[in-house]
């Protein structure tokens, strides 16, 4: 048996078996209650014989009532009874001999008083068949015998006997169900000259029922759940008694999780303490199972203590999912309203089974079962499939707080690799909570790459669509299958490695995913197909990390030396795309164009329209870069046409975003129509939102300006502006200013002024549409700075300054002043004269923009120092 499946030691909490020193050593968090009981005993001792203070200690099961009885016993044993003896009689926890006959309780106490140390008491106190009609007489007789026993037992009949009766509520129900019997009991408890104090423990009511004779006949002491601090103290006391050092910080964090999990039930703290030492999640789960099993009786009783309606409500809470508000619960059980279940909820809380916490986002109180082992037990016993199939699933909330995220991830990975996929996946997903993988190239484009890889496979991997669907839904199963399979040749192994990497990535194990591919690259540098598959998988993986562009380019460039013609065509298309992209990155646009064109041809040959459209789109980029604008425009037209034809919406959007680079320089007729189309596509397909997030409105605006299609642009903004600014806040780039200056340089001052006059209110409008936190407050200054640098026409500078009205931006005035001063500087024969009288801050900006030298050279080092003579 491995350590992972061995439960930590589970012992039932038997206080009767614990040594006195153990009891004292680990007693925790009950000082106030202990003092109350000892105070009552002391008052009873002082009053005896007389009216004694009887006590009932209330507490839910497992809250330490028996433990407290032992503590009292020990304390009384150590007490110096200068004022007469106090004898402590602890009745056995369960009293099956006491049935039907109320007087049997008195007889039992009498027997114990007389023969406490021998087993005669056990034999003598046997059950007697009840005789109807004699209850009263027998009770009186038994009471008299008990008085005699007290006379004998106490020296000179003086002193006090404390009789501890556990589960007194049960005893009342079995022995004193008849009202007159309970009346007799009350009368007996408060008879004159009494020397016997009752110290009862109970879970349910003993003295709370107004209509019962014992109503408010006791001093009541209540055991409340332990606080987290109590639990920590307990763990440390226990460790100290075992010679272990106190909990260190990580262990304490775990101990807090345990404390939280058990809802402050001391019995569970004792039983679950061992878990803190455990590293292994499955053994924690096994311990929980063992605990739930061992505590079955305990939990069953806790449930049985509840009345039927209360029990039903608890069931609805656990089955329907926690936490839940009272209103929600009322709906769940079909009650008429929260009022109807309020009483039952109060009982559940009074029994310390559920606890309410205020919801942070509303005024509601949300309820959960405090003891999570209890909830676990309940799910197991009530036939929850999840609880049975995945041991960890039902203690998720525990694992969540017990392990750090790193631990969850590490354990998760280990289980996945050990073949315990369900557990592994569960812990892995736990580690990923709140940090779900965003969309990226590595994951999103995998289906297309996989299609290409499978064209080289020698074994059947099944349908790509199905495989990808399973990868998304149950990556752990796909992982397991791939790891168990060894069919096929090296190529198949490489494909499997990519699938394994994808599975691991989807379960949050990015680093391990990468290792899967790297490992295979290292062992398979020989076969070209294998190399290409792994390379194609490795590059986008790194893409998803963003920061490895150069390395990726380097890797892709290795393909240039390979004889790619040997590859299966579809795989070759992908290889060309990767190679072409690298060439483009390196500025080798002509070579890139050639490679992309090969990709287009090949895709056409194999009839893969998707790869054709991708390759075509890629071709347009080097065409633009090479200044072959009309050919680039034609290519984009083809791309849009083909994308529409094969309804490849994502490629349509990518193409639109790509083409903006060109359209900002060259008028691209129809750009605003494409914009409208792209927006409709993105809005209708939430899965493409990620693409829409790359759409820069200021680029579209300049493209529309260039094409003279501003009205159509305005129409799109009017309809979709709110949505658009929420996808990506509208930025303004410095380059936009250059674009505008370029228009003026090319078509004259009037054209430049018109362009600026069209742009400014539209950019301001986009900012106004944007929710406040996302607004770009410096957009005007950003735009004007590079416009100012690129524009050397003082007249235009002044004209544009005239456009900068305060309604555009609070920065308008400062920007206008800059442009005007710049015009003055540009016009001046000796710019320095103007600059020297100018606001020094603005002068500094102008010097930077125009590359003018600073008026004074920087002070030499040490120049400021004066030497004293």
């Amino acid at each position, binding site marked *: 048996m491995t350590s992972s499946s061995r439960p930590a030691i589970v012992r039932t909490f038997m206080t009767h078996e614990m040594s006195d020193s153990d009891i004292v050593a680990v007693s925790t968090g009950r000082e106030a209650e202990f003092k*109350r009981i000892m*105070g009552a005993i002391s*008052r009873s001792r*002082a*009053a005896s014989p*007389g*009216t004694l*203070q*009887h006590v009932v200690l209330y507490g839910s099961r497992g809250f330490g009532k028996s433990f407290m009885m032992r503590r009292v016993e020990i304390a009384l044993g150590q007490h110096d009874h200068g004022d007469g003896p106090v004898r402590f009689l602890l009745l056995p926890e369960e009293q099956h001999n006491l049935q039907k006959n109320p007087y049997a309780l008195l007889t039992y106490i009498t027997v114990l008083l007389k023969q406490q140390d021998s087993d005669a008491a056990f034999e003598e106190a046997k059950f007697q068949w009840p005789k109807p009609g004699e209850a*009263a007489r027998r*009770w009186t007789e038994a009471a008299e015998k008990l008085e005699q026993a007290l006379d004998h037992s106490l020296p000179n009949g003086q002193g006090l006997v404390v009789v501890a009766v556990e589960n007194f509520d049960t005893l009342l129900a079995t022995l004193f169900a008849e*009202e*007159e*019997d309970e*009346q*007799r009991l*009350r*009368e007996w*408890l*408060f008879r004159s000259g009494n020397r016997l104090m009752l110290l009862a423990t109970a879970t349910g009511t003993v003295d*709370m*029922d*107004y*209509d019962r*004779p014992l*109503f*408010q*006949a*006791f*001093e*009541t002491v*209540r055991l409340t759940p332990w606080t987290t601090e109590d639990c920590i103290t307990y763990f440390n006391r226990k460790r100290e008694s075992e010679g272990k050092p106190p909990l260190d910080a990580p262990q304490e964090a775990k101990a807090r999780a345990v404390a939280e999990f058990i809802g402050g039930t001391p019995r569970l703290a004792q039983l679950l303490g061992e878990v803190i030492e455990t590293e292994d999640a499955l053994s924690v789960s096994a311990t929980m199972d063992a605990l739930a099993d061992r505590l079955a009786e305990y939990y069953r009783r806790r449930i049985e203590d509840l009345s039927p309606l209360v029990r039903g409500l608890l069931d609805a809470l656990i089955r329907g999912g926690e936490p839940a508000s009272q209103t929600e619960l009322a709906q769940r059980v079909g009650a008429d309203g929260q009022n109807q279940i309020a009483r039952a909820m109060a009982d559940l809380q*009074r029994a310390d089974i559920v606890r309410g916490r205020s919801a942070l986002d509303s005024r509601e109180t949300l309820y959960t079962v405090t003891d999570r082992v209890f909830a676990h037990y309940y799910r197991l016993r009530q036939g929850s499939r999840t609880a049975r199939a995945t041991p960890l699933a039902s203690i998720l909330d525990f694992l969540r707080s017990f392990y750090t995220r790193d631990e969850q991830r590490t354990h998760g990975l280990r289980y996945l690799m050990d073949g315990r996929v369900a557990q592994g996946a569960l812990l892995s997903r736990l580690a990923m909570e709140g940090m779900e993988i965003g969309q990226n190239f590595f994951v999103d484009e995998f289906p297309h790459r996989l299609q290409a890889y499978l064209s080289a496979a020698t074994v059947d991997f099944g349908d790509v669509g199905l495989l990808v669907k399973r990868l998304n839904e149950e990556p752990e199963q796909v992982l397991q299958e791939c790891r168990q399979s060894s069919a096929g040749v090296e190529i198949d192994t490489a494909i499997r490695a990519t699938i394994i990497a994808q599975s691991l990535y989807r379960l949050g194990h990015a680093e391990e995913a990468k290792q899967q591919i790297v490992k295979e690259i290292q062992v398979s540098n020989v076969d070209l197909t294998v190399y290409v598959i792994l390379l194609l998988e490795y590059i986008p993986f790194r893409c998803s990390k963003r920061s490895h562009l150069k390395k990726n380019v380097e890797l892709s460039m290795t393909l240039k030396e390979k004889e790619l013609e040997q590859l299966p065509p579809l795989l070759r298309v992908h290889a060309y795309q990767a190679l072409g992209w690298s060439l483009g990155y390196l500025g080798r646009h002509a070579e890139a164009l050639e490679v992309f064109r090969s990709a287009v041809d090949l895709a056409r040959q194999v009839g893969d329209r998707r790869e054709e459209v991708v390759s075509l789109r890629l071709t347009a980029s080097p065409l633009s870069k090479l200044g072959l604008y009309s050919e680039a425009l034609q290519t984009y037209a083809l791309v849009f046409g083909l994308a529409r034809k094969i309804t490849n919406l994502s490629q349509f959007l990518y193409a639109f975003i790509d083409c903006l680079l060109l359209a900002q320089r060259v008028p691209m007729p129809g750009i605003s129509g494409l914009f409208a189309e792209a927006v409709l596509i993105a809005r209708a397909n939430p899965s493409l939102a990620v693409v829409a997030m790359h759409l820069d409105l200021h680029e579209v605006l300049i493209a529309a300006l260039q094409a003279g299609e501003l009205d159509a642009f305005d129409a799109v903004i009017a309809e979709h502006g709110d949505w658009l600014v929420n996808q990506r806040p509208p930025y303004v780039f410095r380059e936009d200013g250059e674009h505008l200056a370029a228009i003026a340089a090319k078509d004259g001052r009037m054209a430049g002024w018109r362009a600026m006059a069209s742009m400014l209110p539209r950019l301001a409008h986009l900012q106004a549409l944007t929710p406040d936190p996302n607004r770009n407050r410096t957009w005007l200054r950003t735009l004007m700075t590079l416009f100012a640098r690129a524009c050397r026409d003082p007249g235009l500078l002044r004209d544009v300054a005239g456009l900068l009205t305060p309604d555009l931006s609070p920065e308008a005035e400062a920007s206008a002043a800059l442009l005007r001063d710049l015009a003055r500087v540009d016009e001046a024969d000796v710019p320095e004269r103007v600059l020297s009288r100018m606001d020094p801050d603005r002068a500094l900006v102008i010097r930077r923009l125009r590359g003018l030298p600073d008026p004074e050279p920087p002070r030499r080092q040490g120049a400021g120092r004066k030497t004293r003579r």
Partner: protein
Amino acid sequence: MRLKIHYGTAVTGEQRFARPALEQRLNEAMQSSNGVKMFGLRRIGKSTLRECAIEELKRQKIPYVSLDGQGLTSLSDFMTKWMSLLLKEQNWLQGLLRTAAKSPLPLLVDAFTKGTPFDETALDAYWQGVSSAILDSSQAEPPPILIVDEFSMFIDNLVRRHGPDKANRLLASMREWRGAGVRMLLTGSIGMQWLAREHCLNHEHLNDLQHFEVPELTETEAREFICAATDAATWTPAHTEALLRETGGLYPCFLVKALLEVGMAQPKDPADFATIFADCVRPNLHEDFFRQFDRRLKAYAKLPGNQYREIVVPILKAVMAAEEPCPADNLPGADPLDRAEVLDMLKEDGFITCTVDASYKRKWKPASRLVQAWWMQRGLA
């Protein structure tokens, strides 16, 4: 600490907080009438007051016998207990046994003294004889005062075991005996008015007894109580004020409960009292008491006709809302007799109480801080 506090039952001696005026009033009532009935809420100090009366009887050497109605379920139970206590009053008992020679009474005494079996049916059959014998003997020489604690519990047992007729017979006989000089002090935590209504008993049988009510402590008394139960070295006036502010009722049991929770020798910080009461006292103790009012109020809904809506609730609302004690004439209800009966019922059940002015007009007010707290908490105001 002069007062040794106790929670759970009647107390005497060092455990009892003296209420001289109240005790004096009870003693006077006992001596000036056929006797006293003291029925009302549980745990408000009736039994303690009864114990106090007994002490006074002892002091004055007035003979009495005291028995507890709890656990008694039949006429023979009651008679056996009474007679057994009268054994020490041999003269009177012998006289009675002579008078009742032909009744089962001697057998009953024998049954008790010699342990021979006794049949309840015999007592039933010869009850008239037994009752008359007691009547005759009492006229000749009054027997010791009969004190029965939890008398209404016994009557309740009797009714449930044997039906209302037997209980009515006993109540009628007891009234006759009182007329012949058997003085009685009957106490109980179940209201006899309510029992009578519930089981169709004739509550006229108790009309000759003086009703005695145990009020809450006044605030001054409550301060004295707290002062007596605590140690001046550690307990400050701030503690007292905080406790009085938080406690829902001024009955001794509420004060004791509160003191036990906050500690007496080393009390907790007065600033924490509000939390202690909110967490430990009110949800338990007060709730238990409040339930009593809930149940009674619910039981009234079963009253015949529309009495609950037309009389009971309007009267309760009027009394609870009034800032000054309310004259009966100002209260709702068309028929004055009907109204008076309802007022008595509400009084016995602890909802309201009254003062009587010089012109014998009763003025009604809420019976306690506790009932006011209940009224508020239940949103009835």
